């Protein structure tokens, strides 16, 4: 069995050590965010601040990275969440992960703080700590231009250097955006990590794997979601759909529908700005948008950025959004949290509480504001702390749209109540993906559950969270899992009787889903139609991985992250949403347009095998083989 090799780097002492992960850890945690969660529990000193020198950050890959499997270039960064104080993981599709693996390392465990800006340079089995003082102050784009051309790169911009709480790390034009990873890099004086290598990542059963990949790519190309919707419109295609279902956050989540949303939709983007679509390494889905900005071809915005720098700040200027997307990327700042914090500041101004020079409907000054935030200039330094911090200083907690400090993604949970449960329970906070992404089944997809009903949402959220954890841990892009909605529903469309009936039936599927979760390890089947990723893991590693074990792996992962957050002081009280979502109906007089979190949360804890305080029961940990 090829076991993962990690470089342990202490930046304070300059010590470097190569360590092989034990077989038992590999089999149980495989890699990516799951193994990283285990290593965080093992190595992170309890109670240490996310930005303290003693903090630990893990940059790692999954077993499928670099193997040529579809959508398998995603690498992971796990650390202590700057915004929540709990766990954080951030995922990125740049070339860095694949290159690090080709250079002989599956991951890095970095602790300490360098005395000067540092470039961690990895080449074919060697790790060097180079002085990066000359790079300090450069944006993410210029920093990458200054690094060796053929290296995979992972860098921060000014936002990370200045410890903006939602600073990102950037690889090529792809971004590990959420939870403040850039600030953790900045706090350790890490300006850049680069890697170059020539080794082929190990694949145990190469012949069968190659055949499997060919079949899988063909399946992805034929499936309407991955072969048509995503390549044509990218995630941006969700704007009009979320809007049509009143799930598009508008004016800081005051509403869920924006009259002029089409002006910033994926369809309009494709029609008026798209130059071509592109992809991360080895991805046949090619969801990335390429657009022209000031005569230069750059990466276009994702759905989240369009929604949150558009309707959620009462604006619909596509040019400004393209520019803001680019500027956030080069400054190294998460667009979701940046836009969410700005929307909150706009509402503070509207209510006469505080004035940061930003107001609803106005985007022409926001590029300037972004630079000021990234450089922590004057009062803008407060915006750099995120909406939770702002609400603690100025008030307005009921409309500070975050969970656990992480700003919510661009789905209005009052029209997708399962997504609301996901935001509240997501380990990293208000993240749609870590939250199980029920929005796809409630308000933006082909197949629709009853979006207002709490029925079955606890069980489905648990199942989806577990499945997405395992997909991510293996090194895959989560979009590759969206083929689990059968193609037939795309062909029939959302208005067809059969599609509507299937949605209704799923609304009652809770007990069945719970049963499946309980007997998961007995599901010794692998299928293209549910999670083909399990078979890929099996062929690459030799670990006996089938759909059931794969979902159980995700469950182990979710619980490990939960344990880290609980250890660092988070409690059940943090599994919550702002009052606007749980107490104020989106539509006046319609009591069902709030998130019934109090109904769903106890069921969620029960399904997870947690006690009423949201703590995993000893029995649950035993079942998952987790030792604390």
């Amino acid at each position, binding site marked *: 069995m090829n076991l993962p090799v990690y470089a342990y780097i202490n930046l304070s002492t300059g010590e470097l050590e190569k360590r092989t992960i034990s077989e038992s850890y590999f089999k149980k945690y495989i890699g990516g965010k799951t193994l990283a969660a285990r290593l965080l529990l093992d190595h992170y000193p309890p109670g240490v601040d996310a930005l303290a020198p003693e903090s630990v950050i893990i940059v790692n890959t999954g077993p499928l990275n670099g193997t040529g499997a579809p959508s398998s270039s995603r690498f992971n960064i796990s650390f202590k969440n700057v915004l929540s104080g709990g766990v954080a993981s951030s995922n990125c599709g740049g070339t860095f992960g694949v290159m690090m693996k080709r250079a002989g390392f599956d991951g890095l465990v970095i602790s300490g703080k360098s005395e000067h800006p540092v470039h961690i340079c990895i080449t074919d089995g060697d790790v060097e700590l180079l002085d990066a003082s000359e790079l300090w102050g450069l944006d993410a784009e210029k920093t990458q231009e200054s690094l060796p051309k053929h290296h995979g790169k992972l860098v921060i911009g000014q936002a990370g250097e200045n410890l903006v709480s939602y600073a990102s790390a950037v690889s090529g034009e792809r971004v590990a955006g959420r939870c403040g990873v850039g600030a953790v890099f900045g706090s350790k004086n890490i300006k850049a990590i680069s890697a170059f290598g020539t080794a082929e990542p190990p694949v145990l059963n190469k012949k069968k794997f190659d055949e499997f990949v060919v079949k899988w790519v063909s399946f992805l190309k034929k499936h309407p979601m991955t072969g048509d919707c995503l390549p044509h419109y990218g995630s941006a295609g969700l704007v009009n759909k979320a809007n049509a279902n009143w799930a598009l956050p508008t004016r800081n989540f005051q509403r869920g529908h924006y009259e002029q949303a089409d002006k910033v939709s994926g369809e309009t983007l494709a029609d008026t700005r798209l130059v071509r679509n592109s992809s991360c390494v080895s991805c046949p889905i090619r969801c990335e948008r390429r657009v022209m900005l000031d005569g230069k071809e750059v990466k276009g915005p994702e759905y989240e950025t369009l929604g949150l720098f558009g309707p959620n700040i009462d604006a619909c200027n596509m040019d400004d959004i393209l520019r803001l997307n680019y500027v956030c990327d080069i400054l190294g700042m998460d667009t979701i949290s940046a836009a969410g914090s700005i929307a909150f500041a706009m509402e503070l101004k509207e209510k006469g509480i505080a004035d940061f020079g930003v107001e609803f409907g106005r985007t022409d000054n926001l590029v300037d504001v972004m630079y000021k935030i990234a450089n922590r200039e004057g009062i803008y330094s407060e915006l750099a702390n995120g909406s939770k911090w702002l609400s603690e200083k100025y008030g307005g907690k009921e409309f500070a749209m975050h969970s656990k400090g992480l700003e919510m993604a661009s789905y209005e949970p009052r029209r997708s109540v399962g997504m609301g449960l996901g935001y509240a329970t997501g380990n990293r906070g208000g993240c749609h993906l870590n939250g199980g992404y029920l929005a*796809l089944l409630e308000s933006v997809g082909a197949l629709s559950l009853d979006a207002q009903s709490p029925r079955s949402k606890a069980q489905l959220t648990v199942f989806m969270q577990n499945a997405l954890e395992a997909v991510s841990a293996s090194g895959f892009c989560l979009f590759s899992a969206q083929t689990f909605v059968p193609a037939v529903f795309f062909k029939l469309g959302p208005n067809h009787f059969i599609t509507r009936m299937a949605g209704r039936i799923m609304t009652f599927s809770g007990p069945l889903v719970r049963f499946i979760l309980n007997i998961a390890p007995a599901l010794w089947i692998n299928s293209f139609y549910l999670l083909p990723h399990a078979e890929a893991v099996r062929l690459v590693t030799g670990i006996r991985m089938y759909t059931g074990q794969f979902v159980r792996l995700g469950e182990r992962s979710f619980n490990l992250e939960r344990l880290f957050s609980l250890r660092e002081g988070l409690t059940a009280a943090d599994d919550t949403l702002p009052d606007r979502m749980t107490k104020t109906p989106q539509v006046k007089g319609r009591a069902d347009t709030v998130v019934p979190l109090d109904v769903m949360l106890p069921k969620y804890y029960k399904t997870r095998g947690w006690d009423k305080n949201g703590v995993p029961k000893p029995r649950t940990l035993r079942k998952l083989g987790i030792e604390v």
Partner: protein
Amino acid sequence: MSAKIQVKYWGELITLTGKKDDELEASSVAELIKQLEKTYGKAAAKEGKRMLIAVNGTNIQLLERCKTRLNEGDRVAFLPLSGGG
């Protein structure tokens, strides 16, 4: 009574109708689909039914589905399905 409806096509419907914007007369979504069939053929109507249909920006699934009434000047968009996140 039929009303003049502003129609917007996306995706495959642009190819099938040869248009992005249109004006059709109908008093309900069901009738609009019939108009689509009459004007552009069966394939266009079939494709239209398969898409997410929004009346004045709202999914007909949140309204009266195909029975949704249409009034003079209403906007109907036929939107392609999407994914991502």
